[in-house]
Each structure stands twice: as structure tokens, then as C-alpha cells.
């Protein structure tokens, strides 16, 4: 917080640390996109800068929202998003193909993106309404599973495995923090651990091959493992200091696929090395820590759960993407927020941060007695 006589109060009261971090990450992303385009602001960097500025303004504007307003909007927004998901499904059915977005006039809406913050808010709101004594009862569990399961299923059949995993993980995080019994989380993990070898044994040859390729991408360097193999080459060849700005051969010579979207981190790491990568990871860690602090300092159960869930959303974005590009997870198509080119990830993350800023402002302005 900046306190000065010259700066107007409303400006001074913005969470500047977070804004600096986010702007810093996004600027670095723009530099990487500039390089990925071969040293040009077109076609990516300029467009991304405009999109980012727009959503940053929206996020800052959202910071003036009251917690009660957020609460009031939670279920209607969740419901609307769910209806849009069903709409996408119906349109996809009519159009005979996979579809992820709704065309509403000039705007293309990806409802699954809205679902990430929406599910967090809905579950936080739900567990705020559940009395403490009821938390270990069945009736505190099944509505949450339904709230989470229905949209997750709709997204999975789109099909968009990456987003589905994200939504499930965000939802599960909120449920976990809400205090649901341990076994609810441990049992599925154990079940998967037991079932995986059996399932593997029953799989078809091509299915096994996919898993093998994930575990050892070099075994099929021209096929399914190509993305991961090339991404690892980009990161590994960057070394500690990187090859230098505009010097990445993997991205500039097109060996790295999706070098401006999902694999933007590899593009960055090739030119900026371990140092650039570590700084970026630490910057994201600082953003997430800021969000987690909001959760810890929250005075209401809703704010606690929502802030933690929204931070977790950012966390899952970053960690799934990075694990993917470093060959620790299969390629599921999760972008690196604020860095990857594309409006929807920026929108989701800025919505999350806007909500977080709003919750944080409540902690500072609303009295304890409220």
C-alpha cells in the first residue's frame, strides 16, 4: 500500500504489490511473445497487450465489489455458466463436432473458463451455508459433488480434458479446505493407485502406447512425444543463462510446436535460461502466496474458502502447464496464465485476481463487526 499526500486515496489503496507482480509477469510474457514472433509485436504481443490491459482494468474495477455482492452473484453466475455449458454441448451436437465456445454476436464465450472461478465461489458459498456440525455428514458432501461433477462432466465431453482437470482440482481444493473428511480424498487416490496397473493390463495396444510415450517421449520423437521432446530440448538447451533474447533456435526455427501458447514457457526458458525460468516461477509463487494470505486473513468463511480456491486456480494453471512443458505431466492443453497468447486464460486469471483484490479490500475496509 502506498501512502502519500499526492496520490489520491482510491489509487493509493490498490494492492500495488500484486499489480506490480502481475504487470511484471505479463510484460515478461509480452517480451517472450515478441521474440516468439521472430522479433515482432505482430501477430501476438500487441494483441496480447491490449487484451491484458483490458482485463487488468476490469480486475481493478472488480476490486471495489463488496463481498456481499459477490455472494449474491455466486449462484446466479454458476447457474448461468452451467446453462451456457449445456448450450455449448447442444450446439456441438447440432454442429456435429466438438465445440467449446458460444458465439454471441461479436464475442466468443468459452463458458468452461468462467466455470473455474464460478465453481470455487459456488462451493465456498455452499460450505459457508453448511453449519459446522453438519460438515462431516453426507448432506454436506453430495451437493458439493453434484455442483462440481455436473460441469466437470460437461467440460470433459466437450472434450477439454485440461480444463476439466483444472475445474475438478479447484473444486476439490475448496472441499478439502472446507474440512470434509480425509477418507473422501484419500479413497479415490488409493483407488486409482490400485486400479491403474489393472487398467493398464486391460488396455489396447494403442492406449498403452500413449502412456508409454508420455513416460518416455523420446521413444516416439516424431509422433505423440514430439511436443514434449522438443519442449525439453528447448528448456535443456537454454542452460543457466539462456541463449539470449531472440536467439532461441527451437522456437524460431519452428521445432517447438505451440511456442506462443501452451509451450510458451519453453520458448522463454530457451532464451532466458534457468534464471529466467526461476524468476518467473518465483513471481507466480508470490502471486499465489498473496492470494493465500488473503485467505488466511479473511474474516468470513466464504472469503477464506473463496480466496484459497481462487489462488489454487492460479496455482493449478501454472503448475500443470509447467509440469506439462517439462515432461512431468501429459500434454493436456493448459496454458501458462498471463504469458501464453490467448484471451481466455488471461480473462480467467484476471477474474480470479479481481475477486481476490475485492476480498482483500474488504479485509482492510470493513470493520470486524460487520
Amino acid at each position: 500500500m502506498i501512502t502519500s499526500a499526492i496520490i489520491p486515496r482510491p489509487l493509493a489503496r490498490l494492492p500495488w504489490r500484486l499489480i506490480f507482480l502481475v504487470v511484471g509477469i505479463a510484460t515478461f510474457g509480452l517480451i517472450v511473445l515478441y521474440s516468439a514472433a521472430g522479433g515482432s509485436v505482430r501477430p501476438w504481443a500487441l494483441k496480447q497487450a491490449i487484451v491484458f490491459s483490458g482485463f487488468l482494468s476490469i480486475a481493478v474495477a472488480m476490486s471495489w465489489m463488496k463481498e456481499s455482492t459477490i455472494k449474491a452473484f455466486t449462484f446466479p453466475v454458476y447457474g448461468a455458466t452451467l446453462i451456457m455449458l449445456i448450450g455449448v454441448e447442444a450446439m456441438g451436437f447440432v454442429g456435429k463436432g466438438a465445440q467449446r465456445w458460444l458465439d454471441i454476436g461479436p464475442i466468443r464465450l468459452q463458458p468452461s473458463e468462467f466455470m473455474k472461478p464460478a465453481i470455487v465461489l459456488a462451493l465456498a458459498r455452499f460450505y459457508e451455508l453448511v453449519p459446522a456440525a453438519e460438515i462431516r455428514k453426507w448432506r454436506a458432501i453430495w451437493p458439493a459433488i453434484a455442483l462440481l461433477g455436473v460441469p466437470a462432466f460437461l467440460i470433459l465431453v466437450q472434450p477439454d480434458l485440461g480444463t476439466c482437470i483444472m475445474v475438478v482440482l479447484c473444486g476439490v481444493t475448496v472441499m478439502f479446505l472446507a474440512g470434509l473428511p480425509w477418507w473422501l480424498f484419500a479413497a479415490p487416490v488409493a483407488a486409482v493407485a490400485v486400479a491403474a496397473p489393472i487398467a493398464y493390463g486391460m488396455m489396447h495396444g494403442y492406449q498403452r502406447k500413449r502412456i508409454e510415450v508420455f513416460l518416455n517421449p523420446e521413444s516416439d520423437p516424431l509422433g505423440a512425444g514430439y511436443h514434449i521432446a522438443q519442449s525439453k530440448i528447448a528448456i535443456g538447451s537454454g542452460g543457466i543463462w539462456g541463449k539470449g533474447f531472440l536467439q532461441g533456435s527451437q522456437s524460431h526455427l519452428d521445432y517447438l510446436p505451440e511456442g506462443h501458447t501452451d509451450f510458451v514457457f519453453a520458448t522463454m526458458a530457451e532464451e532466458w535460461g534457468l534464471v529466467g525460468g526461476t524468476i518467473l516461477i518465483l513471481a507466480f509463487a508470490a502471486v499465489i502466496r498473496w492470494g493465500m494470505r488473503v485467505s488466511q486473513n479473511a474474516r468470513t468463511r466464504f472469503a477464506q474458502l473463496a480466496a484459497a480456491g481462487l489462488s489454487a486456480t492460479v496455482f493449478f494453471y501454472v503448475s500443470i502447464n509447467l509440469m506439462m512443458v517439462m515432461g512431468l505431466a501429459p500434454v493436456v492443453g493448459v496454458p501458462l496464465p498471463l504469458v501464453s497468447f490467448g484471451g481466455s486464460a488471461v480473462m480467467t486469471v484476471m477474474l480470479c485476481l479481481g475477486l481476490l483484490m475485492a476480498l482483500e479490500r474488504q479485509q482492510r475496509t470493513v470493520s470486524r463487526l460487520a
Partner: protein
Amino acid sequence: MKHVRFTSAHQSIAFSRRMMLLGGAQVAVGGLLIGRMGWLAVAQNEKYQLLSENNRVQLIPVPPRRGWIIDRNGKPIAINRSSFRVDIIPQQLEKGRDVVGELARLIALNEDDVERIRRELAESRGFQPVSVADNITYEKYAAVTVRLPDLPGVQATRGFSRYYPDGPAVAHLLGYVGTANAKEYEAEDKNPLLIIPGFKIGKQGLEKVLEPYLRGTPGGQRVEVTARGKLVKELDPKPDRSGQTVQLTIDQGLQQYAARRMGDQSGALVAMDVANGDMLAFVSMPAFDPNSFSEGIGRTEWKMLSEDDHIPLLNKVSQGLYPSGSTIKPAMALAFLQQGVDPKRRVVCNGGYQIGNRYFRCDAVHGSMDMHSAVERSCNTYFWATGLITDPEKTTEMVNTLGYGQEFDLPLPTQRFGTMPSPKWLEKKYHRKWQGYDSANTSIGQGYVLINPMQLAVMPARLAAGKLLQPRLLMTGARKPAPDIDADPAHLAIVRAAMAAVVNGSGTAVASKLPLDSVQMAGKTGTAQVFRLGERGHQGAWALRDHALFIAFAPADKPRYAIGCIIEHGGFGASAAAPIVRDTMTYLFDQQKAWAALEPLEKQWGGSLAERNARQLDAFKATSRANGQA
């Protein structure tokens, strides 16, 4: 378990605990990510740098120019001509685009080619280029080159292709070159050079055997390329080294002359230098055009070649086996002399000879024959009778010494060296005792006797030189002086004199005297019966005729050159083979006279060898088209 009421205090504690757990997990994941990145970028940096460099830099092997093959006088027999070609790299093709169709329009490919290209594209493994067209004109090459930016996956290159100025005349000597097949590629440990479009390796003959000398070492153009194979910039290149030039003992002019002199007949001719064993001519006719083979032979031409009853695809010099017929007689005479047969001893030829219960018929009633006249007039009766009073084992030994039944140390991919039968050989091979009729058959070069045309030249050369000459094809390497034949020089003189009489006395080949005042040729005719008549199927009278053979050396008094020649189904040796040897020998002493003798003959045959070959191919194409349409 005792039921505990869960209060908001509990909830608050649980939340803090779980937040700590969550935070811990997040820190762990962050640590894992940074650790993983450090592992990739630091511990494995070298490996990935290498991989990235492998991605970025591609070594485009620059194929070396194939070494020339030149004749003994330095005249080129196999050279390289610059050529233009177009290929497709299947990996770099854009999906859903008919590049083949566009190319077909651009360089006027025919349907056969388009079909072949599509088939090869479907079968290709991505990295291996598919040849679209070879040896195209500069205009077509330029037409493709200017459109290259819009034709991803298409490659137009300027290279070199093998050219044999003498065409079919050197076909069986040199063989031909061609694109390496999968087996050859595997055999060389997947040498990347072999899959460069347009790179050819020796497939037959000397081109195959001399491959290590002729190939040279590839250079490399190091280039930076994008993943789509687009060239970004050129890095420092590595120059290639052309293959070595190989000099042969062959006399290009003689080779060509002999090939043309053979006309449309099927046969082989080998000429040797009596002084050192150098092979001056190595001719097997008819032959394919090695130039069409090197460019990839058309289906029609291949069909024509393989259906021809003169078997143009067979190297008759090294792989054709024939009964020697009477050309064995000088060697027999020497063997008899060595075993103490008096050259003055006389045998009366009444037109045949009775051995056991079989009567062997001679060509004529020769009357009283001594060794000289028996060779001169090719009297079988004399050799039957004398063969029976000598030791067949010793006789065969002498004939072997002179070359029959021997394999020579020559750079040929395959060499069939035939049979010179002896009692020991017969016992081993057919488990039976040597009989009188075996001696009889052998002494006139029939029965089990099988020779190749090289032996047919080595024999007169050794007789003429009195030395164990070894035939040579390569000029390189030290010449070892040949040891003398283990024979009395007086005996050799008798045989040589008899051979001189064959041509210049009252012998069987007097019609083939050299048209030269100062040089006389010595020789021996041979007519070999074709035993297995049905072997090549029913092919009319031609295939039923005897093979005509002739061996010769000249000058008769001071031999310098020796020639052996066989004309398949040529009939009587003196009529078919001897004139060819005469003219070829003439060429060695007086080229003008030799060309003068050939000119009227070629007119009579209907043009030069090249013209006749072209006409034959056109006629065949016309017939097969007509048959195809019918």
C-alpha cells in the same frame, strides 16, 4: 469411534491445518518444478544442446562425383554429365495438396511416371526422397525452380549423371550404375549418402567391383533449417572429393570396333596384348544401353531386353559357357607333343573313326594327316586316334595350363570358368571311369569341355607368348613378368606354325587372311555342336545352328595380339567368327582398313549400332503398344 461434535472452532483449526498442508504442497510443487528445470538446463544441458543443434543444423551430404573410367590411352569410357532432377521429400509435403499433379503439368510427366510417383510416395518412409524426374531439360528444371517457394516438399537439384559415350559396346564390361536399393542401403549401415536423390552406385560389371575407387568421399553442406525443412542460412561447408579415375587396359577404339563389327549377332570377343596379358577388348553382344540403365530403364525397354533370344542382359564374356570345339586342338597338339607324340606321325582319316561300338564321323575324308595338317585342316580323326594313345590326365593338365577351365584374377562380379574334364574329375563328379570316347570327345573340345570367351583369348595368347600370361583389366599395379610355359619351345613353334597355316596355308580359315602385306595372322577355327537343343525353348532354326568359334594371334611370326571370339549359332567357325576376328585384328594394325571393311557391312545391316538399337526399341514399343491396344 466416539462421536465428537464438530464445532466452528474445530473447523477453524482444520482450515489452518489444511491451509498449511496446501501451502506446503504448493511449495513442494514449486520446488519440484525449479528442480526439474535445473536438471534439464544444467545437468542435462549438454545433451539437450546437442539435440537442439542437431535440430537446427542439418548436414546435407553433397554427393561426390563418380570417378571416370578411361581406356589405356586415356580416352574416357565412363564420364559424368551434368543433369537436372526433381524430387519430393514426403515429410515436407503439405497435407491435402496435389503436388504431384502440379509437377506433372509443369514438367510434362506421363501417366506411368505419375502412377509410379504416387505409389512410391505412399510407400515412402518420410525421410527418403522420391524421385520425380531425372535428367530433365534445363527449361523444365528452371520452371520448377522458380515455383519452389510454392511447392513445399519439392526439391530441384543440379547434379551429375553417368554417361557412357560408347553405349552398348561397353555395357557388359562396365556394367551400369543405379540407385541403391533397400538391401544395399542396409548393407552399408544405412550410409546416408546412398539415399541422396540421384546418387548412384555401381550395380554390375566394373562399376560394381570398382565402387570403392570410383565413389569418392561426400562433402557436406551445413545449413540451418526450420522444422519444415526451409533453409535459413548456410554454414561453413565441407568439400567433397571426387572418386578416383580408373584406367583400364581396354582400348576404347578396339572395343567399339569389335562391338560394331559383330553386327546383330550374339557373341563375345576378347582381345589380349600378348606382351603382358592386358585385355584390349572385352565385348559381349548384343548388349543393353548402360545409359538407359543409369537413368532408370523404362518398362518397355526392359521387356524388350529380357525377351530377346540373343540375351543382351547376359555378360557372355564372363558368364557364357560354350563347348570349345576345335579351338582346343592347338592345345591338344602341344599336350601330345609334350607326351612324346612324334609330329611326323601320320593318321589316315577315312572320314571317321571307330571307338568301341561307336563310329565318330569326321567333317571330311582328310586322308593321311600329320600333326601340322591335322591342326591346319581341323581333322578330328587325327585327334581321336592320338587322344587314345596319350594320357588324358596329362593332356588335360596341359590344356589347363593354357587357360581352359581356369578362373582368372579379374575384377569381375561373377566369372564362370567352365570345365576341362580329366579322369580324376570324371570320377569325382560322375563316379565313372574315363572311357575311350571321353578322350575322343575331349580332344576335339566337345563332351564335357566348357569354356568362356576369356579362356578363348588366353589360350592363343599363351601359345603365342610361350608364357603364362595372366589377363588384366586394370592398368594400376605392377606388372609381374609371366613365367614360361612348361613346354619345349620347339613344340610351341610347331603348334604356332600349324595355326599360321590354318589362315595362310591351306587351312580352314584361309578366307580370313589379314588384308595386310606385312602381317599374317595365325588362328584356329572351331565349330561347337549345340547339344541341348531344347534348352532355350523353340526358337527356330537359329537356335539349332552350331556355335562358331575362332582363336587367333598376330603377327604369326612375332605375336603381339591374341583374340578369341565366339558367335552363338554362327554355324561353321570359319564363316562367322573368323571374319570378325580378322577385321578386329586388322584394326590393331591398320585402323583405316578396318573401318573401310566395316562401312559396307553396316550399310547392309541398316546403320550403325546406335541407329539399329534405337530402331529396334521403337519397333518394339510400337508392337507392344499395338498389342496393348488390341
